[in-house]
């Protein structure tokens, strides 16, 4: 069990009268790639917020390398090695692409890849001097992935990384992540099935805050119940 990086046990969260998440379990091993999918309102983003420590679960626990991370300040969580890409592109629009990546590297005591390498990795090598606010939407998403990589994470959490991307950009993003697979653990929350299919990894399906199915994507895709939920039949 020594290679367990992140362990969520029996996580439940209640907002007033709404049980947003109930009895969720997730184990992320070192250098593992996994996806969390589900229709809108299934609790994907809420679960991700619990996993990053920004939301404290009302029951259960989330442990990263054995430490309880609920309620830690954001910058402490980042320094533990948890990087996060937000759902809306969260970049620094008034800084150049290069400065965005520099700021990301300065945030942690021992940053990883040099800026040049990060730029190439997220296909922004020729836009280094551009203001980040002027990038196209898909490029902003990539820049944010690059910033998350700059802190040399142990665990990368991606909240709908392909939201608003064209199909080509979506596939390019999946390839980018597959190239990084094996360097650190990645958890991606998505509802774009093409993207998850391209990643083809362990997948957890949420529905109304509960686990509906989990297993390799191939099994999930052929599951009758999952198809029903996605098509809105239940």
């Amino acid at each position: 069990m020594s290679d367990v990086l992140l362990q969520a046990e029996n996580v439940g969260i209640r907002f007033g009268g709404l049980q947003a998440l109930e009895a969720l379990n997730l184990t992320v091993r070192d250098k593992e790639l996994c996806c969390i999918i589900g229709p809108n309102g299934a609790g994907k983003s809420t679960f991700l917020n619990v996993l990053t420590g920004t939301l404290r679960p009302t029951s259960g626990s989330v442990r990263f390398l054995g430490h309880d991370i609920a309620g830690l300040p954001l910058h402490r969580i980042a320094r533990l090695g948890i990087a996060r890409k937000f759902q809306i592109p969260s970049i620094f629009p008034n800084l150049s692409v290069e400065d965005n990546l520099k700021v990301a590297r300065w945030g942690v005591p021992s940053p990883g890849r040099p800026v040049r390498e990060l730029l190439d990795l997220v296909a922004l090598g020729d836009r280094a001097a551009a203001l980040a606010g002027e990038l196209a939407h898909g490029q902003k998403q990539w820049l944010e992935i690059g910033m998350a990589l700059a802190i040399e994470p142990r665990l990368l959490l991606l909240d709908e990384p392909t939201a608003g991307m064209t199909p080509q950009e979506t596939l390019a993003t999946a390839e980018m992540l597959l190239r990084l697979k094996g360097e650190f653990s990645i958890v991606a929350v998505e509802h774009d099935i093409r993207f998850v299919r391209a990643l083809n990894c362990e997948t957890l399906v949420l529905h109304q805050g509960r686990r509906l199915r989990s297993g390799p994507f191939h099994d999930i895709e052929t599951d009758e119940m999952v198809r029903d939920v996605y098509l809105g039949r239940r």
Partner: protein
Amino acid sequence: MALDRNWLLIFAVCVVLAILYPLFADGYQLTVIRDALIFGLFAASLDFFWGRTGILCFGHAAFFGIGGYIMALVTLNDAIPFASLLGVLGAVAGAAFVAAIIGYFLFFGGIRGSYFTIVTLAMGVICQQAAVSWSSVTGGDSGLIGIPPIAFDVGVTQVDLSQDLPSYIFVASIVAAVVLALWSISRGRWGTVLTAIQDNEVRAAALGHNAPLRLLITFVLSAAIAGLAGALYVCMAGLVAPDLSGLLLSTEVIVWVAVGGRGTLLGPVLGAILIQRAQQTISSFNPSLWPLLLGCVFVIIVFVLPDGILSIYARLKSLLRGRRRAQ
């Protein structure tokens, strides 16, 4: 890079002008510019915080006043040796201390934006009221008078700043050195991260940056320099009064920064000098006209030149380029 070069160029031109000025000015004009420069330093201190964090402090005169009163109390006390030096240090430390306490609760309490502005506005009013009410120490409404000019020993020679020219040189060098130092801090790593925090604080924190601490340190540094300006001013003017920590001065310094160009550090110094110059000229034929004009100038600047007077050249250039393209 080009922006850096332009800034240094304008800075160098200002330094040359400041060096040449005594050749053409009489003693009175020198003291006028000297006092304006001190207020320019005060404006630069506000700009260092406001310009880089986007958070407006509406009570910055509180720090100016705290610095002034501490300097006055130390130098008026005959029992204290090295009074000028200790007074300046005390003024800087006192302003920084108050900023650290207020800033700690505001920044770590998540207070930002207009809420920060409102709380600092109240802080300024409290400081002014304290200066008026605590009359056994502060002299109440009439303040303290007879503050001696700065004097200290350098090796065997005594520097005495009671004369116009030495005091002008002293103030001008301090202003130039501090503005240059603030500029080099704010263009490097420190300033870049502050811009990032201004753009998206949550993102910066999620990358490992301790945003509240960085804002706090910037605020404390800004207040310390405001305190230094206050200390210099009371020694040159020879008196300290509650107005120096009041709402009017807090408002004026915002206008100086806005007119000169927020985030440029040099612009606010020039803005302070220009506006005080205009104030003296206009008040000389009608004293009640000035506040009206000041308000109008502020409104016009905000609408027409939101980046301040230093941006006039860039604006004209882009305007001409646009016209040429249209033809």
